[in-house]
């Protein structure tokens, strides 16, 4: 957009909404590097990535559901924990291969149940995924008896959790690869095109002859598969798994997506933005931790940021509509 004159309030809003996250993330990282002691250190950067990776993997996948205009998938809390518990518990008794297959089957089931309820039955995504969270966590607690599962200290899961690539944990590499793959899927393929088109205008997409219900199922399947990968990464990191381990992943992922600038109204957004949102939230949290600011304040800061991001998105939309 070329402008000769001073930008109006509406144009500023649109700039923040469209480009803001790139600028703010760079500024935040630069600020931390310059002014926060111990930020630039191998130990700290590794720690930031360790914490960011599982939730980031969930977030890049859930971006599909948000862009499709279906708000979010709350059941990732149950899905991540289930994948982690199944990976460790089943591989302890039946081997790693079977554990991965079992987790994959469960992920597909979650994606299909959520997707069919929202896509074919037209149920509200928040209600549907809230229900599947409860059912899923209930089953997990019943089967696991609420106990913590430990992998053998010399097992393959433990080994994967310790692998480092160019000094960074394997989980960080998984996050980068997932982001690249999903960015390609969303931005370059027919499937991703239909997700964006459906999110922008579901009626127009249906009237173009598209089977839109199938598109919704696809969005939930992508989220479920990402949640499974996140569960594996989380289990490998600590070599333990418990049903409560993914608490807060739902809103953590949504925060990264929204702060990244993907619209909660659907249609607008990208996987790369979500990655930036993840980095922004993680670095901000890290800064607050390093500055010895309590957990309560961290939560408040993230909450305020979400409100800010949603307001900018809403106002920019209203301004554009004029």
């Amino acid at each position, binding site marked *: 957009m070329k402008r000769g004159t001073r930008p109006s309030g509406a144009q500023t809003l649109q700039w923040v909404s469209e480009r803001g996250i790139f600028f703010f993330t760079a500024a935040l990282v630069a600020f931390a590097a310059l002014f926060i002691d111990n930020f630039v250190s191998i130990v700290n950067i590794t720690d930031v990535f360790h914490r960011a990776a599982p939730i980031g993997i969930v977030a890049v996948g859930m971006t599909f559901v948000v862009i499709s205009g279906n708000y979010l998938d709350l059941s990732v809390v149950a899905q991540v924990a289930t994948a982690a518990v199944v990976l460790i518990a089943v591989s302890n008794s039946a081997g790693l291969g079977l554990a991965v297959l079992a987790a994959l089957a469960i992920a597909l089931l979650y994606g299909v149940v959520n997707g069919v309820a929202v896509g074919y039955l037209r149920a509200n995504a928040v209600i549907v995924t809230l229900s599947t969270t409860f059912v899923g966590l209930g089953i997990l607690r019943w089967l696991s008896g609420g106990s913590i599962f430990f992998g053998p200290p010399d097992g393959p899961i433990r080994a994967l959790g310790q692998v480092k690539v160019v000094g960074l944990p394997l989980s960080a590499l998984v996050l980068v690869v997932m982001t690249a793959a999903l960015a390609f899927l969303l931005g370059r393929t*027919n499937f991703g*095109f239909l997700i964006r088109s459906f999110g*922008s*205008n579901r009626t*127009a*997409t249906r009237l173009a002859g*598209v089977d839109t219900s199938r598109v919704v199922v696809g969005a939930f399947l992508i989220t479920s598969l990402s949640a499974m990968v996140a569960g594996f990464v989380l289990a490998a990191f600590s070599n333990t798994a418990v049903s409560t381990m993914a608490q807060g992943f739902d809103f953590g992922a949504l925060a990264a997506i929204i702060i990244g600038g993907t619209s909660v109204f659907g249609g607008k957004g990208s996987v790369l933005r979500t990655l930036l949102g993840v980095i922004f939230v993680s670095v901000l949290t890290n800064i607050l931790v390093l500055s010895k600011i309590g957990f309560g304040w961290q939560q408040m800061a993230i909450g305020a940021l979400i409100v800010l991001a949603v307001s900018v998105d809403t106002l920019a939309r209203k301004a554009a509509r004029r």
Partner: protein
Amino acid sequence: MTADQTTPEAPGPVVIEAESIVKRFGGATAVDDVSIAVRSGEIHGLVGENGAGKSTLMRILAGILTPDQGEVRVDGRPLTGGTRAALDAGIALVHQELSLVPELTTAENIMLGAFPTRLGFTNARQLRGVAATALREIGVSVDLDERVGRLSVALRQFVEIARAVARKPRVLILDEPTATLTPAETDYLLTMLQRLAEGGLAIIYISHRIPEIFRICDRVTVLRDGQLIGTTPIRATTPAALVDQMVGREYKLDLQIRRESTPGEVVLAARGVRAHRVHGVDLDVRAGEIVGLGGLVGAGRTELVRAMIGADIRTAGRVTVTAHGRTRSISSYQSAVRNGVAYVPEERRTDGLALTMSVAENIALPNRRRLATGGVLRRSRVSAFAQRLADSVGLRPPDIRKDAGDYSGGNQQKIVIAKWLGRNPKVIVLDEPTRGVDVGAKAEIHRLIRELADQGTAVLVVSSDLPELLELSDVIHVIRDGRIAGTLSGPEADERSVMSLAAGGGMVGKA
């Protein structure tokens, strides 16, 4: 015919009068220097084609819109201060679209906005009492505690009128109240209005249905293109004269404009189609033929075409598309699109385009399969394809990277047409293809529609724009109450014949 507002047709004094009202929306003048006066005890008819300015004028009388020029007076006193002041002055408007809350009861809806309260709490007994009185006054029996969402459309219409009557109005304005009613219900409503008028109420009655106007009105005012054509005592006019006044220009089909068409085989065939508001329609569209669907808003034209192509549920009937010698049945919208049907919907902004996506992406949507290799979209192929189509429909500016929402109405319609052109459709259905489009873009869209027909596409057009319908169509079916009321072609199709079929006045003898 000249304006005649002084004839003392109705008994009472003038209650409400509007003088020299002008209302503009953007560049368009919706109401242009219109004056009207209605007396106590009078039923005053207001007629005109779609878009003549009737509803706008009534919204001004009810205080919903403020006129740019002119004045509304009640009992000689100027009316200012919006809806509240109009309500206080005793003006009640029964809207064209029902404005009831389906989750609330009959009594609550009737009293909505005027709940009787005691110490800040709703006085339930008084609420039901006043509502019951209003219903008794219009002579309708409805369960006061039934949720309105469970009532029939007709009963809801009567509840709406009861709501107006409960406010003890002096002027009652009804905007096409019988559009959704059966003949028996209509009969009841008209009798009720006559009784209310005898009690001294001034009633303004908007309707497209000429027989109703002649049955109950004392005087009738005709609007055309926002201008006042005249006010006449009903005894001094005839249905034929009224239709002539509404249509105005003696529009004769210009045979120069019409295409030389040599229709081929039947491509789109519908038999016994029934759906919501559609009561059994048979329809054929041949290759290279443009079939027009005329009729009033609410006659069921949009419902008919949507049911035909599977965009909405069809309760009965069979629709087929024949191409390359193969006849396929249309069972769903997706099967329609697969078999070569293209649909340009009435609401292009909400149904036709993804406004936050680029022109290229909108054009690519129905063509995505041929633009992709192994499911991966080829960007260069998409932009070359979209650019070619954008150029062929004359998109201006032809920038396919811009969002569809950044374009004007006419250009947006061109984008909708462009995305279907890419599929070489066998059948194209266009619903109000040029509504809200400027004159230049309108001519271009007409040219595109003719070109499609010339290339052998079967074209079905719904239009409320009579000159457009007459100019484009080889055959016109006029729809009324969900059925084909008549079929016109060649020289017998003119504005008057279409309008009288549409309004149910029967065929009006040619002048």
